[in-house]
């Protein structure tokens, strides 16, 4: 079980719990505004862009090459940017705070 906090663009804080699947699916199930997941979670659309709160960044591994490439030309991307369809919900993510970009 992992408790994940999403902070939407209008500063709404949504705390959800999940056990499996991707963080994008968890966000969509809980109607987190700004996470669309248009491609269904195959790293093809970049509509699930989040920025990891620096304080919890060490809970996540490195982004894959394709994920980094998808974000490279996004004007809103920074060093904490991730596509959350590529983040699997595991215990390791417990307590992570994600800022929704769009």
């Amino acid at each position, binding site marked *: 079980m992992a408790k994940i906090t999403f902070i939407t663009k209008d500063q709404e804080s949504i705390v959800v719990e999940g056990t499996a699947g991707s963080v994008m*699916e968890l966000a969509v199930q*809980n*109607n987190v505004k700004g996470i669309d997941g248009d*491609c269904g*979670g195959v790293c*093809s659309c970049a509509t699930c862009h989040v920025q990891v709160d620096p304080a919890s960044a060490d809970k996540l591994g490195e982004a894959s090459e*394709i994920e980094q*490439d998808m974000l490279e030309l996004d004007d809103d991307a920074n060093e904490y940017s991730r596509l959350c369809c590529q983040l699997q919900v595991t215990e390791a993510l417990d307590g992570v705070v994600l800022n929704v970009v769009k």
Partner: protein
Amino acid sequence: MDNNKCCVIIGGSHGGVNVAFSLRKEGWEGKIVIVDKDPNLPYQRPPLSKTYLTVKDESGYIPLKGEQAYTNEGIELLLGQEVTKVDKKTQSVELNDGTVISYDFLVLATGASPIIPPIKGIDKARNLFVMRNIQDVKGIQAALEGGVQKVAIVGGGYIGLETAASLRKLGLEVIVFEREQQLLPKVNANTLSEFLLELHQNNGVQIELQSSVSEIKNEGQTQTIITAEGKAFECDMIIMGVGVFVNQTISNQLGLEYNNGISVDKFCKTSEDTIYAVGDCNTHYSAIYDQSIRLESVQNAVDQAKIVAKSITGTSEEYNSLPWFWSDQYDVKLQIAGLTIDADNHIIRKEDEKKWSIWFFKGDQIRSVYAINNAKAYVVGMKLIQQNAKLDKEKLVDLNEKLSPKTLLIQNEINV
């Protein structure tokens, strides 16, 4: 805004569902009703031919939105129900159970259906399937449980090839029939067709090009596919992937203008003032490619949905999105930016055998990019096409040059 108003959306897939949620986002306070004959909570379609087909559990079933989201946003879902009658004079729709719902705005997100060609003997075909919804996949899975060994796929387009890849993953014998002389016949690049041909053959798929299926014979326990070229192939299951036709029942009843799809203006409005059409079912003008087009894609459905919601709520914005698509087959990710419809030349940039890209031009102007295991080429392509950019082709094929908009640009004209 008047909260006594009602927007009825026919069709609850990517287009319809996104119209509903976008309407709320734009401040629509009236009623929203989605009607769809599919009884399942609206779901992602692209995984059907990919993950969903290959897993036995429900992990491939990805709802577009959680059930609670519909309740929270006050979106009424009438699933497993069908609109049987529409009346534009009284502005109402009638459902199969007799319920009549009045609308102020009607949105047709009625999509398209797979073509089942009138092949001789097809009415007696065993285990004949298409690939469009959950029922189709469940039907295929049940037949596989029943001992199907050899699957014939008719059509070497995206649906056919993705399905072939998934079925190979499950260990089935697969044969693909393509009428034209190359796979993905609609794509104007032999290199890609040849790459995919080799990919599928290396993964054990038998590909029969220039083979049109002319008859399906069922004798005893044996089902045989006969081609017009005179060849015969046995199979236990047949999956049709030969394209789709627009669902026109509703638009015909309404007498809407039609041109290869329901004709809509820049705001996705049909020839009737209170009726919109989104997604696979409409034909719209593309300013980027300066022609009327009909697209079958998630991107088009989702982006048009936002345009419809804006128009209904009075903050009109013209639809002008650059189309994009993707396909996953085995370990190959294909990402496509733009359309090749007005391209007159193309060049290939090859990082290595598995990672490369095709760049389609009209003169020097970039129009489309097909990126194979190369997300960077895809995002750079998207950006450059949106800028209407002209590219330095010599730099593009030079692997010492970084793949970035800055290096590739020779001229930057923004057409408005």
